[in-house]
């Protein structure tokens, strides 16, 4: 007959083998702070580069007001992209592990869905700003073009953001399935198992 109380005592007395990475709280907290600082620096650099390009390109190319308006709209679109991407980085690293498991499973499934389709909420703002921006720049660059050539250039300027978005979604979905597919499966199975017995 197995005495569970005896097993409990045995369990709590067990020694742990020496680890090559002996748990050191101070070293761990330093690593975590450094990582967070590095991510913040990278994201700030990206934002600074974007701002620099938005200011430098019009000045360097002596762009007229129409083209500058186009660049400004592109800047809005890229800023939306950067902000969503930044939130995404924080999001996956910060699944709400402190919730009871049942709530954790639910919120993680939602968060992972957001990761797979990160621009669901901002899609139209992003696309419209990019399309309008590219078309304004195209319009300002036209010099005595034929109607056909003008139509072709504007079609390209309109189609390009949609194409870029579609391609980006495809690549992201592939990467997501590879990296998060197993976790997603596990979470779905756990949700099903817990469904009837949660508080």
């Amino acid at each position: 007959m197995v005495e569970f109380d005896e097993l409990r005592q045995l369990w709590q007395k067990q020694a742990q083998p020496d680890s090559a990475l002996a748990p050191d709280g101070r070293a761990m907290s330093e690593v975590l702070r450094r990582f967070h600082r590095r991510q913040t620096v990278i994201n700030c650099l990206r934002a600074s580069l974007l701002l620099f390009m938005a200011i430098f390109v019009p000045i360097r190319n002596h762009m007229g007001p129409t083209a500058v308006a186009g660049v400004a709209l592109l800047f809005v679109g890229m800023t939306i992209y950067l902000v969503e991407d930044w939130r995404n980085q924080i999001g996956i690293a910060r699944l709400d592990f402190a919730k009871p498991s049942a709530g954790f499973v639910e919120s993680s499934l939602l968060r992972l869905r957001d990761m797979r389709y990160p621009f669901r909420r901002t899609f139209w703002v992003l696309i419209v700003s990019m399309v309008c921006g590219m078309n304004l720049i195209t319009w300002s660059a036209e010099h005595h073009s034929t109607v056909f050539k003008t139509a072709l250039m504007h079609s390209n300027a309109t189609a390009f953001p949609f194409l870029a978005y579609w391609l980006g979604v495809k690549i992201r979905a592939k990467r997501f399935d590879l990296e998060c597919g197993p976790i997603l499966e596990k979470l779905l199975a756990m949700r099903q198992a817990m469904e009837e017995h949660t508080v």
Partner: protein
Amino acid sequence: MTHAERERQFLEVFEKNKASIRRLCYGYLNSASEVDDLFQEIMTNVWHSLPSFRGEARISTWVYRIAVNTALVYRKKWKHGEELPELADDRCGAHQSLEDAERLRMLHAAIATLPDQDRLIVTLLLEGLSYKEIAEVTGITVNYVGVKISRIKDVLEQLIGEATHGRV
């Protein structure tokens, strides 16, 4: 929360809970080589979650929640169907008997046969958490915790009993 406060709280939580969390990692993974990985992931998540801790639960319950959830989504390096890695023999301290060492080994082997969530629940029970505390960690009802533990104990009893008779 300032950096200094966060670090101070993290170190306090780390020192108080590292032994029990490492035992939980052993119980869940049954592989000495991956315990460090899982332990680091758990402590990383504790670090990230500290600013949002508002004292709505006891700190130990809060840490166990993070540990359990991290373990549940942890991607093990070995796949289903592979042979389980050999257990380390030095799980008992030098002052404990060979019999205790053997019983502990059988306990670990029995726990390793359980599904993921059951492994974690039985490890929490072995750590001394009550049914109510386990329910707070997992978010399932106290009654269902009782039902699960009853089934888990039956399975463990059967497996350890078979292992014991096999050696006699």
